C-alpha cells in the first residue's frame, strides 16, 4: 500500500504494508538511524518521534496511521535552533552518558516544551516518564531541560 506523509518537512511516499511499524519504516526505508529500538513495546521511549508535534513511540505506530500527517525525527529536528539550545543544555547539565536513549529524550523534550515552555520540575519528570535512561539517574536530564527552557526562552 502506498503511504504518503510528511517526514522531516518533506513530502514522502512508501509502498509497504500499513501494519509495518513506523520505527522500521523510518530506520529501514529512510535510513533514519537516530530513531532507536530499545524495547519494541512502547516502554523505553528510545524510538520517540513527533507525530503532528506530539511525542509518540514509533514502535507502537503502524505506518498506515501516519498517512497525511507530519512525522519529525531527530534527523529533521537537529537542523533547528531549538535543537542547538537543547544540545548545549544537555552538554552543560551532563545529561548524556551512553547516548542510546538521548535522541528519543530530545524529541520528548521538544514535545513537552512546545506545550509548556516553562515547566516545573514535576512537570518535566512527568513529561519524561515515558523515556527510560539507565545511566544518568535522570536528575541531570531534568536540569538540562530547565536550562534549555531558560536559555531558549521565546523559542518555544
Amino acid at each position, binding site marked *: 500500500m502506498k503511504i504518503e506523509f510528511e517526514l522531516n518537512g518533506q513530502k514522502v511516499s512508501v509502498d509497504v504494508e500499513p501494519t509495518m511499524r513506523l520505527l522500521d519504516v523510518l530506520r529501514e526505508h529512510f535510513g533514519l538511524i537516530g530513531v532507536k529500538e530499545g524495547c519494541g513495546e512502547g516502554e523505553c521511549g528510545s524510538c520517540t518521534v513527533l507525530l503532528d508535534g506530539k511525542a509518540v513511540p514509533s514502535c507502537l505506530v503502524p505506518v498506515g496511521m501516519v498517512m497525511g500527517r507530519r512525522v519529525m525525527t*531527530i534527523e529533521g529536528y537537529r537542523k533547528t535552533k531549538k535543537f542547538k539550545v537543547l544540545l548545549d543544555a544537555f552538554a552543560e547539565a551532563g545529561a548524556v552518558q551512553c547516548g542510546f536513549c538521548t535522541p528519543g529524550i530530545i524529541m520528548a523534550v521538544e514535545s513537552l516544551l512546545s506545550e509548556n515552555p516553562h515547566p516545573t520540575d514535576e512537570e518535566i519528570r512527568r513529561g519524561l516518564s515515558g523515556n527510560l535512561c539507565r545511566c544518568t539517574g*535522570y536528575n541531570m536530564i531534568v536540569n538540562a531541560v530547565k536550562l534549555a527552557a531558560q536559555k531558549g526562552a521565546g523559542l518555544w
Partner: protein
Amino acid sequence: MEISKAIRRVDNDEKVSGIAKFIADVKLEGMLYAKTLRSTRPRARIKSIKIPKLPNGYFIVDKNDVPANNRVKLIFTDQPFFAEDVVNYIGEPILLVVGPDKAKVLEILEQIEVEYEDLEPIFTIEDAESGTKPPIFGDDNLFADYEFTKGDPDAAFARAYRIIEGEYRTGIQEHIYLEPQGMLATYEDGTVTVYGSMQCPFYVKNALVYALGWPEDRVRVVQTTTGGGFGGKEDYPSLIAGHAAFAAIKTGRPVQLILDRTEDIEATTKRHPSIIRHRTALDASGRIIAMEIDIKLDGGAYATLSPVVLQRSMFVSTGPYHIPNVRVRGRAYATNNVPRTAFRGFGAPQSIFAVEMHMTNIAEALGENPIDFKMRYFLKKGDDTATGGSVHTDVKLDEMTRQVIEMSNFYEKFERFRKEKGDTVLRGIGFSAFLHGCGFTGKGEEVIKATAKLRRRDDGKVEILVSSVEIGQGAQTTLRKIVAFALGIPMEDVVYENPDTSRVPDSGPTVASRTVIIVGGLLEQAAKELKARWNESGEIEVIKTYRHPEYVRWDDEKFVGDAYPEYSWGVNVAEVEVDPVTFEVRVKKVWGVYDVGTPLDERVVRGQLEGGIVQAVGYATIEVMESKNGKLMQNTITDYIIPTSIDAPEIETRLVVSPYPYGPFGAKCLGELPMVGCAPAVAAAIQHALGLKVDEIPARPELLLKKWLEKSR
C-alpha cells in the same frame, strides 16, 4: 585541581544528534540477519531437532559450524556457544537461522521443532545444597568454594559475651542497558572481523581465537558505540560474537545478530541473587570482637565470572570496618537458571547490603544510633582489612559521615520520624557506609598486565591506543583529558578511536572501575615520558605496562594480603516514605559523600554517582525479577521495572578528596562505588519507617506487608 573542572563531553554532540552509530545502525552490502533458536526447557536432553526445508539463501548455523572448540573461553570452558546434547537454562542458544529477510528468518525459526527429554532441574541455592539432584557442574555443583580467616575467630566466639546472627537475601538484578546486545561479523580474505557492543574487546578476541582455532592475526574485534554495559557486556558479548562469526564464515556474507529486548532479558546474564549469613561476637562491653560470614550465590547454569564475583563479595564482606577476627566462607552454586555474572559492583552490593543491615541491627540490639555505632569501627590508614592486607592511604570516612549527617539533618529526623505515627505516610531515614576495591580482584591485574600505548603521529596529534572502551561512563572524555593535561596540549589534539584489536594493545577489559586508576595511570606515565621526548623528530611511541605499587602483597592461594591496591569510600543517607496501606516505598532523597580521589571531571563524576545511586534505589525497592521453574516471570521492560524520572529521588552529593599517589592526578575508582552502597541506606530507612527488619531486597510491597502482618500478630 584544574583537571577537575568539567569540560564538554567529547561524545555529547554525536549522541544528542543521533549521528553516533550503534551496532544495529550499521548495514553492510549483502548483509544477512541471524536469529537464535533457544531452549524452552530449564534442563533437558535434546532428542531431535526437526528443521524445515530451507529456501535458497537461508542457513542453519549450529554446534557443527564451530571450527575448533564449541566453548566460550573465560575462567572455565563449560559454556557452549550452541547447546550440544543438553540444555541447562531457558534461553540457552541451540542454533541460528540466517538469511536476507528478517521476517522470513523468524518464520523459519518458528517452524523448527525440538524434542526434549526433561532432566531433573536445580532451581535454587537450597535445591543445589540438598545434593539430591545430579550436579550441573563438576561433582559438587559448585563453581567456587572458598574460605579465609583472619586472627582467631574461634577463640573470639568462645569468649563472646553475646552473639548476634542474621540472614540477608538479595534478588536477581537485570542490567537493562538501553541498547540491546548485538554483533556484526564479516569474513574476508581468511580473516574474521566482529563489530559490536562490548566492554572487553580482548575477551571477545580471545574467545574467538579459541573457538576458531585460528592464529590471532586472522581474528579482529572492533567496538562500536556501546549503549550502556554495567557488566552485562563484560563476558556475554563473546558468546554472540562467536555466533555472528561462525555464521559469517559459513555463509561468506556479513551477518548481523541483534537481540530483541525479551531475548536480551531472558537469555543474557544477571546479578547473582544471594543468601548471606552473619554471626557476630560481642564482648561484655558490646564491642565487636569477631565476624563470621557465609556467602552463597546462585551462579546460574554456567560458571561465567562467578568465582571472581564471589571473591569480591567475600573480600569486602566486613564492609568499611576494622574487625580483628574474621572468617568468611563463600560458595557459588550451579543452577538451571540463566547465568549470572558481572553487574556494577561485582558481588559487593550483595555483601555490603548484608553487613550494613547487620551492623544496623547490632546497633539497634544495643540501643545505639547506627551511625555512632558504625563510626567506631571505620577503617583507618594502617588498619588491616578482612584479608589481612593494609589500608595504605588516608581514609576520610569520619569527615564524610559528619558531612552527610549535616546535609541530611540525620539525627533530628532519626528521632522525629521514629516518634511520628502518620496515618497517611510513614517516614524513615537510613545510613550506609561502604568501600570499593579499585581494579581487578586479587591477582587479576598481575595476570592481565595491562598495556597502554601513546603515539605522537606525524600530523602532530597524539593518539591513545588502549582496549578500554566508552560505554557511557565518560572514558572518551576522561582518558583524553589525562593525556591532554599531562602533555599540556589541547583536548582536540588527542585522538582516541573506538578500540580495534588489530591496532591497540590489551589494556584489559573495561570493568572493575579500573579504566581511570589503572589504564589512566599508564596513560599519565606515558604522557610524561612523551613530554620529555617531545623535541624528537617524527613519530614517537611510548608503551607502559601496569605493575602494582611495591607495597602491594597478595597470596592468591590463601587469600591473604591486599586484595586491592587501593580503595574508594562512600557514605549515604536515604530518606523514604512508605504508604501504610499499600506499603509502596517512595525514596524521597539520597545524600552521598564520596572519596574517589581527585575527580578528573566533576560533571562526569557526578553523572556516575547519580546514575549508580538510582540503579541501587531500583535494586533496593522496585526491580523485582523472579524465576518460576527456571522461567523468568518478568521478561519485558513492562514487567521488569526500572526507575523512571518520576521514581528517581532527589540527590545531593559531595566529594571529599584523598588523592591516590599512584592514580592519574590522584584519581581512584568511581563507577561501581555508588551502586555498591546505596541499597542498605534505603533498606535501613524502610526498616526505620516500619519498625521491622528489612533483611531482603528488593523490599517490594508484598514482602513488607507480610513482615508487617507477622510483626502485628
